[in-house]
Every structure is written in structure tokens, then in C-alpha cells.
């Protein structure tokens, strides 16, 4: 079995008296496509917010490649290798598509270029810019946005905005890519397209993917393993077929 990329131990957070997430234990292995599902308000996005540093967990720890990242801030966690997309799309709206991806490439060691070098327009600046653009185009090609690279990102249709967010996250060269409802608002065609893209990213870029999704067809068609959350606690874990047929899970979704 391949090594564990993300491990959470007893991870939990409470806001005032509300325990939004408690006792979460996850083990995500390298190259996995892992799903996090559950009804609205189950705490899925809160989990993302904890492992990307937006919220500091109140209990427990989480590890990326056995390195404890609990309580680190967002920038550091991103540098260590966790990238994410947002449920309510957060693009840099006033920038072109390609610039959004270029911002994602900002911290890559091969594109290092100091402020001084940029201000004085040293040869390194031009070399770096050119290389960054090449890489950005390559990433845009994966999500099928290469042709749109010079449009303003706010003018893209919804589905393409979601793909651009994925491209931007991918540009930070993550070990673990967290996708928050990537297929939300997409039609069946686009969803199928997105499934291909996600698989292709996993295979070509060798990243592990953790995703939140409500579309069960998407989840069961894509994920190797899932965790079902309800009211901040784990209801079931395992392969999609097993976990989604768990009586507790069916009860949570249908009620009763």
C-alpha cells in the first residue's frame, strides 16, 4: 500500500458551544481520489478550512506526509503542499485567466525572481516571466481553458470559473488538492468533462485529491474511498458502494 499523504487525528473545532466537527480521523493515501460527503451543514467545508489553515482546530492534529501542520497559517500550509478551491468561487476577478494561474505559480522555486530583479528588469526577470507563462499555458490546457487565457476571469461562465480555480490551485504544485464542490452548478456534460479532468490531474501531476461533492454519481464514479459526515461526526467510511449504502447514511439523507 502506498504511503499516507494526509492524516488527521481526532480533529475537531467548535464555534462557541457548537461543535462543528469532532473526532475526525482520516487517512488519505498517495494517489487516492478521496470523497467527503454529507448533508448540508455536516461540516465538510469546515474540515477544508481546518486543513488549509483558515480555521485553527480546537482539538486534534493533522499531518501532511507525517509533518504536523496543525495551527499553521494558510500561506505556510499552501507552501507545504495543500491547495484548495472554494465552494463560493474566489477568483481574482479583475485579472485575466492566465494571470490567475500565474499567481498560483508565484512560489514555485524554479520561478524565483526577487523584487530587486523585477524592478531593475534584470535578464532573470524576462527569463522567469517567459517560463512562467509557458507553464501557466500548460496548466490551462489541462483544464481546457487555454483559448480563454486572455479573457477576464469574471467574464467566464460559471463552470469554467470552477475549472480555473482548480488550475490555480494546481499551479501551486500541491501534494494534496482539496476541491470544494467542483461540480456544483454544472450540467451533466460539464460534470463528465470535469471527471475526466480530475482523473487526468491525478495521473499526470501525481497529486492526491480530496473532494467535497453533493453529486453522488460524480462521487461514486470518481472516488476510491469516501467519508460520510453528519452533524460534524463521521457516519461511515469506506468505498463509495459500501459507505453510501450504510443504513446510518441513508437515514441521514432521507431522514427517519
Amino acid at each position, binding site marked *: 500500500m502506498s504511503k499516507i499523504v494526509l492524516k488527521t487525528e481526532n480533529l475537531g473545532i467548535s464555534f462557541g458551544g457548537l461543535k462543528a466537527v469532532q473526532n475526525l480521523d482520516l487517512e488519505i493515501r498517495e494517489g487516492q481520489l478521496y470523497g467527503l460527503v454529507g448533508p448540508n451543514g455536516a461540516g465538510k*467545508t469546515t474540515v477544508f*478550512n481546518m486543513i488549509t489553515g*483558515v480555521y485553527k482546530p480546537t482539538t486534534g492534529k493533522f499531518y501532511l506526509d507525517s509533518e504536523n501542520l496543525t495551527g499553521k497559517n494558510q500561506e505556510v500550509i499552501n507552501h507545504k503542499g495543500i491547495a484548495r478551491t*472554494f465552494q*463560493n468561487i474566489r477568483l481574482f476577478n479583475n485579472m485575466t485567466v492566465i494571470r490567475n494561474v500565474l499567481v498560483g505559480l508565484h512560489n514555485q522555486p524554479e520561478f524565483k525572481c526577487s523584487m530587486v530583479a523585477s524592478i531593475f528588469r534584470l535578464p532573470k526577470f524576462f527569463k522567469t516571466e517567459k517560463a512562467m507563462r509557458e507553464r501557466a499555458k500548460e496548466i490551462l490546457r489541462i483544464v481546457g481553458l487555454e483559448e480563454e487565457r486572455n479573457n477576464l476571469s469574471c467574464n467566464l461562465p460559471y463552470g469554467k470559473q470552477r475549472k480555473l480555480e482548480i488550475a490555480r490551485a494546481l499551479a501551486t504544485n500541491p501534494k494534496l488538492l482539496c476541491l470544494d464542490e467542483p461540480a456544483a452548478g454544472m450540467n451533466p456534460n460539464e460534470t463528465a468533462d470535469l471527471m475526466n479532468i480530475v482523473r487526468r490531474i491525478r495521473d499526470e501531476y501525481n497529486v492526491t485529491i480530496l473532494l467535497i461533492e453533493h453529486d453522488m454519481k460524480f462521487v461514486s464514479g470518481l472516488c476510491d474511498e469516501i467519508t460520510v459526515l453528519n452533524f460534524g461526526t463521521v457516519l461511515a467510511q469506506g468505498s463509495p458502494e459500501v459507505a453510501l449504502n450504510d443504513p446510518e447514511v441513508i437515514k441521514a439523507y432521507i431522514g427517519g
Partner: protein
Amino acid sequence: MEFIETLLNGLSIGSTYAIIALGYTMVYGIAKMLNFAHGDVIMVGGYMIFLSLTSVGNPILGLLAAVLFCVLLGISIEKVAYKPLRGASPLAVLITAIGVSYLLQSTAQIIFGSAPKMVVVADFGNLTVGELTIPYYMLITLGCSVVIMLALSLFVKYTRTGRAMIAVSEDKGAAQLMGINVNAIITITFAIGSGLAAFAGFFMLMKSPSLSNTLGAMPGIKAFTAAVIGGIGSIPGAMVGGILMGVVEAISLTIPAIAPYTDAIEFLVLIVILLFRPSGILGKVRREKV
């Protein structure tokens, strides 16, 4: 004894600031804009009092005329300059407000000239209790301010309009969906704020009779600072911030070594408080949903 006098002075200055700050904070809470011209409405109120005093001679009538005029002015400023910009970037609204501020100041200068006018509202004399000497104007300022603040708090809490104001400040869109006429609420807010500014103008002229077209500029900035210290958007916050600002000012003015730096000290209080409480003393911390 001297300390009690200083404290009372501070409370009276502070309550004037609080009255101005209420105008800032209510407009900010409801319309989400920084009304830079608010200080200049005070000045306009001052000139109205001056006009009434020279024509009729009754300070109470003068105050009433000033309140009425300022309410109308506030409403028309909102309709003409701010309403078209609803939904535009906050910076655009801020710049427009600055433009309105300049406009009011220069109009006043064209009409009344640049030389300051002496406006003696009335000679109230002093109250002497034992060793204490308290000018009556301080007590009038304090008393009126307390009544105004109480009335405003009760208005916001117990009337339909007041509650609608809270609803609009919480969520404009949702309030509109609940059938609240947001435009009317914004107009009422500007009317109340501008009326309060006229009162503040009256208090300031009682304290010192010199009236010029920049009467409201510095007090306006300080009152805005007070509103931010208290937590902008919060009505009790504006009161607390205003009083704090006034007391700091009064105390600082009595210590010779730091008296010239009084303005700096007041602004320093703001910076220090915001460093520890980034949304002011009573302000709500709003977290952006991720």
C-alpha cells in the same frame, strides 16, 4: 475639585462628540458609507443659528431652524449625491462625500465671507457649588445629550422604523425582501444624523462663539474617530467612543506638558485601541465566510 471640573468639561465635550459620532455611525451602519460631509452639516447648522439669532434673537428658535434646515440638507445631499452611487464601490462614495464637504465649505464661504463670525448664543453664567464653578452651558450640553441619546436608543429599540433600521444595517437585501422600504430608511437615517449635527453645532457655539466655514471639519474627524473607537455601526459604541474622546481631550488640555499634543494623543488612543480591538470597543467582529 479641579479634577471634577475637568471631568465635567470632558463629559460635555465628549457628549458633543457622541452626538456627532451618532450621525456617522448610523449612516455607516445603514448605508455602509463614510459620510465625510457630516462635519460640514454642523457648520451649516451653526450658520443657521447665526442667521436666526441676528434676525429673531431667540436661541431656541435658532436651534429649531437649524435642525429643520439640516434635516432637509441631509436628505437632499443623500438624494442628489449618494443615492445614484448606491451599489458602486465604497471609494467612489467616499470621494463624492469629500466633494460634498468641499462644496458646503466653499458655499458657506461665498455667502458669509471668510472672516469668522462671533455668535453669542446666550450668556448662561456659572453654577457655583461650594468650591466648584461649573458653566451652565456644560450642564445644558450634558443634559440635552443624555436626553437625545436615550430617546434615540428607545426609538431604535421600540419603534417599527427603529427596528427596520437595525434590519437594514444587518442585511440590506434581506430587509428589502421582508418588505422594508430601504430607501425610506436610508433617508430617515440621514435626516436623524443631520438633525443631530445641528444640535452639535448649537453645543459648540455655546462653548466658543467663533463661527467659520471650517467649524465642523476637525470636530467631524474627531467624532468619526470616536465612532470608530466605539465600533463603527454601533450606536452605544458611538456614545462610549465620544465620551472617551472628550474626557481624554479635557484631561490632556489641563496638563501643560502634553496640552499642545492633544490632537495627537486623541488619535493615538484610536490607534492603540484598534491594535487591540480591530473592530472597536463595542463593534462586532464580522468574519468573512469562506
